[in-house]
């Protein structure tokens, strides 16, 4: 099993690094979202540090949505998807590995950039660490949930917008627990671990449901 899985992972990672620098574009979009918020809400530092974790999470969600539409569409356009269906490998695992490669190429850079962007929002060091940790645990869930939308819209020419509409409602639980875990780290009375563990659970659930639902959608689409 490991040989083909590794080959697929490497190929997807190479493709996303070589084509269009998707990691950089995602991080730049993240930066753009986070920097326009202070202009919108005004230079109130206390307000910024209070809503900072939420802004970082929403920025990460939007930046994740940005590259998702090509997750399966690029493979469908050149006939690769047909061959993947015939390759004799479990499609659910193929989807999971593709998501993993996609997350490493686009999600992980967001996590790395988060502490830097947190400075713009006047976050304390503890809050910075908490937001980064929740993003590290939570962004895989965003990618995996997004894969369902990407698989459903794979045959649509301009599916990116529909994908966002489909995925955002499903991502709300992740957003809620991600932000509340980060908030809990700043405000003492609330325990940090409770929402954080629920966030971990959401990622694990997404790792099961995402690939199964996406594989079903892709099989249906090939008919």
């Amino acid at each position: 099993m490991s040989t083909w899985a590794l080959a697929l992972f490497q190929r997807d990672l190479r493709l996303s690094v070589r084509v269009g620098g998707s990691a950089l574009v995602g991080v730049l979009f993240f930066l753009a979202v986070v920097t326009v918020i202070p202009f919108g809400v005004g230079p109130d530092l206390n307000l910024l540090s209070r809503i900072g974790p939420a802004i970082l999470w929403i920025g990460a969600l939007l930046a994740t949505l940005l590259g998702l539409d090509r997750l399966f569409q690029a493979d469908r356009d050149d006939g690769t998807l047909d061959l993947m269906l015939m390759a004799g490998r479990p499609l659910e695992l193929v989807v999971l590995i593709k998501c993993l490669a996609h997350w490493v190429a686009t999600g992980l850079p967001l996590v790395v950039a988060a502490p830097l962007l947190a400075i713009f929002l006047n976050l304390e060091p503890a809050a910075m660490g908490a937001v980064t940790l929740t993003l590290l645990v939570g962004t895989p869930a965003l990618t995996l949930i997004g894969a369902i939308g990407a698989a459903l819209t794979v045959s649509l020419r301009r599916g990116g917008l529909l994908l966002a509409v489909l995925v955002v409602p499903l991502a709300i639980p992740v957003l809620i627990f991600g932000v509340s875990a980060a908030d809990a780290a700043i405000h003492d009375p609330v325990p940090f671990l409770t929402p954080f563990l629920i966030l971990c659970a959401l990622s694990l659930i997404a790792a099961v449901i995402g690939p199964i639902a996406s594989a079903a959608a892709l099989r249906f689409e090939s008919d």
Partner: protein
Amino acid sequence: MFEDLSFSLEGGSALVVTGANGIGKSSLLRTLAGLVSLAHGSIRLEGGAPDTPSEEHIHYFGHQDAVKPALSVLENLQFWQSFAAAAHVSGFSGSSVDPMDALNLLGIGHTARLPAAFLSAGQKRRLSLCRLLVTPRPVWLMDEPTSALDRVSETQLLGLMNAHLAAGGLIVTATHSDLALEKTLILHLRAGDAAAPSPEEALQ
């Protein structure tokens, strides 16, 4: 799409599907490849692994090349070699060819390190053909295999197809040009009317 369509092929023989444009040659091949589900009927491959669906014994060589322009030629081929599972049936003696040897065989060995974006249409087609050589599978479904190929490559392709047949493989191909294959059956598809919906099958 199809009604009353039934045929069987034995190891080492080829089926050439002919017919007018839009008659459903490509659809027939996609159905055999398991990419279009059957409304009725069945497709069976005898001698294959019992728990493996028939499409996993099949190489589909369609209109699309499945070549990633951002990867090098060799990377493209190596990916397919490790990703697609090899399949064997009794009576088929095909074996795996090393990716570099396959590229050399089809005359694009000198491009191995180049990004596939630099390849011409015919060269991409040949790279896609290499995919069939690096992973042995008994059944080849080839949709217009000669398109975008020059004369020399066409002869080469025929040689490869005949070698595949000689090793006990099966080929189903949709084509407009005459292919000098050994042991060929011809399936001519034509539009059926309600009274006589029977596609012809003739032995050459």
